[in-house]
């Protein structure tokens, strides 16, 4: 007991349990409440996640970065006119705006095999951090396989299914959508990739897609994600389908680690 008037922070004597879980355990308490540090830790994580959702993606900056690498882009908008509408009307985030559709029509094109679409989704931070470095790995691989590609389509206020509209426009066989995933407190910048074979707007469903999720610095690496995506591309070409009937048989080191069965409460 302290003799002065400072309230005591009661530390939990089981801090060592933190080695087993990323969960916020052994936070300690003041009275029965959360100590200031733990309280602000949480607020910090939430602020990062909220900003990832709400700060608009710098599309011009992304265009520039891709141009520098020698890649053409088209920036298009969905029918969700602003962020508030986007969050409440997922249906509108799956449809191209009239001007975007016109822009695609005016963009005369040669036959195309695959489309690569980048959408801000629910985390602009994810796309800001991971889209360009990942595309620098992916696009050369696709070109090496002689896939004919239109410009990379950058989509504002887009949901996953917006890729279907783009793929349909180009009559592309393969559709790859890079999108910002719903941010968690521990992963505000997680990117996902959705792959669809013969994607068609209003016809393709989630069951027709394969998802590679959790791409960020503490999650799946670019190389791991690329390996999975190229596996899916190859298999889809063989089977002529994607989705639930196309199983990802690549194994990644993290998931394959022999799980420790030890449990200190019972051993």
């Amino acid at each position, binding site marked *: 007991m302290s003799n002065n008037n400072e309230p005591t922070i009661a530390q939990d004597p089981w801090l060592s349990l933190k080695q087993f879980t990323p969960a916020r355990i052994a936070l300690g308490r003041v009275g029965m*409440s959360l100590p200031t540090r733990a309280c602000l830790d*949480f607020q910090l994580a939430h602020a990062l996640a909220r900003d990832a959702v709400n700060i608009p993606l710098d599309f011009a900056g992304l265009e520039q970065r891709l141009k520098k690498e020698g890649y053409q882009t088209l920036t298009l908008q969905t029918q969700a006119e602003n962020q508030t509408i986007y969050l409440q009307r997922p249906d509108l985030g799956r449809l191209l705006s009239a001007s975007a559709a016109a822009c695609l029509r005016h963009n005369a094109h040669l036959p195309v095999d695959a489309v690569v679409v980048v959408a801000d989704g629910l985390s602009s931070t994810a796309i800001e951090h991971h889209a360009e470095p990942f595309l620098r790995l992916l696009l050369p691989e696709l070109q090496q396989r002689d896939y004919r590609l239109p410009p990379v389509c950058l989509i504002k206020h887009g949901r996953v299914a917006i890729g279907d509209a783009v793929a349909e426009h180009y009559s592309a066989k393969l559709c790859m959508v890079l999108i910002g995933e719903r941010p968690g407190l521990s992963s505000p910048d997680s990117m996902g990739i959705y792959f669809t074979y013969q994607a068609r707007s209003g016809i393709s469903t989630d069951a027709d897609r394969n998802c590679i999720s959790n791409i960020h610095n503490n999650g799946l690496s670019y190389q791991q994600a690329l390996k999975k995506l190229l596996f899916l591309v190859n298999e889809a070409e063989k089977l002529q389908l994607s989705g639930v009937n196309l199983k990802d048989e690549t194994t990644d080191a993290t998931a394959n680690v022999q799980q420790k069965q030890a449990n200190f409460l019972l051993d």
Partner: protein
Amino acid sequence: MYKTRIADQVYDFKTLRNLMAKATPARSGDYLAGVGAATNLERVAAQWVLADVPLKQFLNEVLVPYEQDEVTRLIIDEHDSAAFAAISHLTVGDFRNWLLSERATTEMLTAITPGVTPEMAAAVSKIMRIQDLILVAKKCRVITRFRNTIGLENRLSTRLQPNHPTDDPAGVAASLLDGLLYGCGDAVIGINPASDNLEATSRLLHMLHDVIERYRIPTQSCVLAHVTTTLKAIEQGAPVDLVFQSIAGTQKANDSFGITLELLNEARLAALELGRGALGDNCMYFETGQGSALSANAHQGLDQQTCEARAYAVARKFKPLLVNTVVGFIGPEYLYDGKQIIRAGLEDHFCGKLLGLPMGCDVCYTNHAEADQDDMDMLLTQFAVAGGTFIMGVPGADDVMLNYQSTSFHDALYLRQVLGLRPAPEFEQWLQQHGIFNAVNQLQQQPDVPALFKPALQKLIGYGDEQQ
């Protein structure tokens, strides 16, 4: 029939289903579905018309066709007209007055329960303010039992939710022990498995069983796998206390969840057969939430709150130990912000209690909703004032597997302090016996590990060093 003239406008709502939707306080999911009121005036006009609808009309005009929907059939076929007699002469507006009056005592509310349909409960809630929802719910008392007693007056229980991203046993155990040492876990120790397969489910079931046995904790376990997975686990001899399932208010939505009433019944009978409830036979744990039917494109033109109330008809058929409305999990396209989440949570609690269910609430939100911890504190406090049966206990309110924010062990202790709410009596005794809580249900001033858990942690220090 559902017509009015108000502020120089004529409104004709045509059907009871449309009237219910238009009368619902604004929420994004009803706009997404295209069924919400276009203006404030239209909404209030609908509320005026709804207030004049006799309760009996809900038995005559079903909102989803009887022939097409087994939830409708359940509601109509099992309606108890004797219990309904006391309120059968009332309109929706009269019903609100009656519920708020001294006539509606706890005994009366219990007596009418089998005579109230989900649609009647939903209708009256649409013309109730938040304080009405709290006041009436608080008068309702629903007590259930498995290995302890849930829902007694001035008690609040907690579901300990020790989820881990890969179901690692030590990871689950770490959160589990953290929770127990904060006095959490009397409603259930319930894990959402990272992967819904039989092997993972069985492994977790055995682990929870062993922990509860070893430390003689008066509570029950649940692994929140699909009911078919749990049934297989029972067949294989796994120790299942509570059978979990997500349920919804239309047959079509339940189809999309891969369930039927028959399947739920089969699962309940299988769990009862195990006879694991020492104090009672409430062996089901259901989760619900506004918007789930719409997200399965199975709302049948209903507003999401009415759909939700209909899910409670499914729940009460199977005498659950716990029902949990996971109110803010679904996202802003259904409940946009803190205001919508708070009201939805209190509506669900009110409707559930009025229909005789042990209602808990996962006071929660996702990071793309316009909500924060302050909003959760408001719902948490109001829910507890309303006599809510249980809340979640997640370490630091951050679920690292499901990636959303719920309520923490500290949150439950806050409610115990400000409202004097105690845990379930059997669990309270266990907490006090092992010195986790003192005699007034507070944590000990000097934090120490109770003798019961000292050996486990002492071993661990060596174990932890070896790992490094």
